[in-house]
């Protein structure tokens, strides 16, 4: 690499690490808050309900933002290798999101805003146990996070459109419909991670616009309460924004696996027609899947409910059939190098499937009428965030550390981490599923039986999980120091 190229790579790498480490730091803080909530529900500690709901609000908003920051940093780094991106724009997006996180933090500590991260209208304004300024600060914080997200999505959109010759090129349209002419033209298809960038950018911009609209409406309502908002309209926009934003965290993180896992398998994860079409499906399905959050809203137009169910089912196909199955084929008989990085990436795909399966079950209208608002809902999204997105991110971080230090973790270390992260994680998640199936409601500071008993098991699971993450951190620091020692 030439001197300027090295400098550019170092600058891009810095952007990635700043995003990822900030995301991991927020994740760690939110995990501790999650443990506090579960211990409160288990009655191990006395947690005032007002404080519980405030913590729950912060935990939800913070976790999604943490995961998004990790995915954004990673995908930005990968796309920067395809086409040089402005680091200035990346830092703007980062600064806006961090400012939003600080505002949300202040709205909860000391503001005690506790309407949930979904801030469903009119909940933030009616019978609030917190001061009005906390509502305003929370809404402002979410708006700042959203603006940062929009900045990032805009940069990604510009990148893929400019690099691959417009939307048509970015979609690999000609590869799918005119393969011979495409091959003869000498053009190259976008790499798999570019599809993740395109989907995150397009669906992210649409969701960001919806979030901005409802965000401005809520802020205006906060300033001038006489301005009415249609609650169904607000709920549709809020979930379109929130569900899509949360869902895209995993599609951003999978890009890291597309690039990282092949290096362990010594094979290439190339773009095929099937992969391109699968991502077209994802582009469409992610945008409409949020309807499954409104099954209980009787005023929601009926056709939309059916669309919600069908699209939620269809959304499972591209990741399960193409990405995860493709990943399994990639490593099949490849003599995969098992390291911390590959272990996390592989396990993350399993977590994605399990969490996705839980989501599809809950998206079935008949089943949803029973499971709606039970702990089954956090069960599925904790599975694909904690044992999916987080593992993809950790896999990528270890991949980077292993590559730069030319060192690996010992098998004993891998076993210790696996026992903690997967074992503790399994206990923690199973508690959610069992409680949900038993009808224990979600978002309750004080749960009816058997909630407290199950929450105790969940707390034990989180403690084991956190020990696993702590060992992981120690190992990451060891590898990072090794890198410094090896580097000239």
């Amino acid at each position, binding site marked *: 690499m030439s001197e300027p190229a090295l400098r550019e790579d170092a600058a891009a790498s810095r952007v990635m690490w700043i995003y990822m480490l900030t995301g991991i730091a927020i994740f760690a803080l939110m995990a501790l808050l999650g443990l506090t909530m579960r211990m409160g529900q288990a009655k191990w500690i006395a947690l005032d309900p007002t404080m519980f709901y405030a913590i729950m609000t912060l935990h939800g908003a913070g976790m999604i933002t943490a995961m998004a920051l990790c995915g954004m940093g990673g995908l930005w780094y990968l796309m920067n290798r395809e086409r040089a991106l402005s680091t200035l724009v990346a830092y703007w997006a980062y600064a806006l999101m961090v400012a939003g996180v600080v505002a949300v933090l202040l709205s909860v500590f000391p503001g005690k805003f506790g309407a949930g991260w979904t801030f469903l209208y009119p909940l933030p304004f009616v019978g609030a146990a917190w001061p009005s300024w906390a509502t305003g600060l929370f809404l402002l914080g979410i708006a700042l996070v959203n603006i940062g997200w929009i900045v990032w999505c805009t940069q990604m959109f510009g990148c893929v*459109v*400019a690099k691959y010759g417009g939307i048509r090129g970015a979609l690999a349209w000609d590869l799918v419909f005119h393969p011979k002419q495409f091959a003869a033209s000498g053009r190259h298809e976008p790499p798999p991670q570019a599809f993740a960038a395109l989907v995150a950018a397009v669906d992210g911009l649409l969701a960001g616009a919806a979030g901005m609209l409802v965000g401005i409406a809520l802020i205006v309502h906060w300033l001038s309460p006489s301005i009415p908002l249609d609650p169904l309209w607000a709920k549709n926009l809020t979930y379109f924004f929130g569900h899509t934003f949360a869902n895209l965290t995993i599609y951003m993180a999978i890009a890291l696996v597309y690039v990282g896992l092949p290096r362990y398998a010594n094979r290439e994860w190339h773009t095929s027609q099937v992969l391109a079409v699968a991502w077209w499906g994802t582009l469409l399905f992610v945008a409409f899947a949020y309807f499954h959050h409104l099954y209980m809203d009787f005023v929601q137009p009926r056709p939309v409910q059916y669309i919600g169910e069908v699209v939620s089912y269809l959304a499972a196909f591209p990741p399960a059939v193409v990405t995860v199955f493709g990943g399994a084929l990639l490593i099949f008989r490849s003599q995969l190098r098992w390291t911390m990085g590959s272990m996390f990436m592989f396990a993350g795909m399993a977590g994605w499937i399990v969490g996705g399966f839980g989501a599809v079950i809950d998206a079935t209208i008949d089943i949803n009428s029973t499971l709606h608002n039970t702990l089954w809902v956090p069960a599925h999204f904790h599975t694909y965030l904690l044992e999916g997105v987080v593992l993809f991110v950790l896999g990528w971080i270890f991949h980077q550390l292993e590559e730069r230090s030319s060192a690996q973790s010992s098998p004993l270390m891998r076993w210790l981490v696996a026992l903690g992260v997967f074992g503790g994680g399994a206990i923690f998640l199973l508690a959610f599923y069992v409680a949900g199936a038993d009808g224990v409601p979600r978002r309750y500071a004080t749960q009816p039986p058997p909630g407290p008993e199950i929450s105790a098991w969940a707390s034990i699971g989180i403690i084991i999980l956190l020990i696993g993450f702590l060992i992981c951190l120690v190992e990451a620091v060891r590898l990072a120091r090794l890198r410094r020692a090896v580097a000239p």
Partner: protein
Amino acid sequence: MTASRRTLVIALLAAACVVASVVPPIESSSIRLDVQTHHLAHAVIIALGLALGLVIASGRPVREEQPAWLLAALASPLLAMLLMIPATYDFTETHPVLHALDHLVFAALSLLTAYGGEHYLRGVGWAAAIALELMAVGAAFGYGIILTR
């Protein structure tokens, strides 16, 4: 598009923007629109402003990121949506000149959204334009009103 045709389209769109912004408030100052119709009227002006911005920007496609223009492309839609506060509608409808000016600001912000996006990087103006238009139309279905079902 040839240069002369582009100039003609720009002139026509600019004229349409001004007419759509100025004529209705002044000519029908006695008519009170409901909030939904008023939002939709703004969406039409915004659509014209966006189209104008895209046509103006089409003459000089930008292939390298110009970060400063991204600020314009993102701040303008925010300001446009903030201006669509339904509580101001009663007041502006009784002040035709102010109302017309308000509309012209909408048109200008929309133009800046599309133009700024295209000057940040080719293709981004279209994305910003679609997002702003969706927000403007979307506002008509619940912002400042409760729809009866």
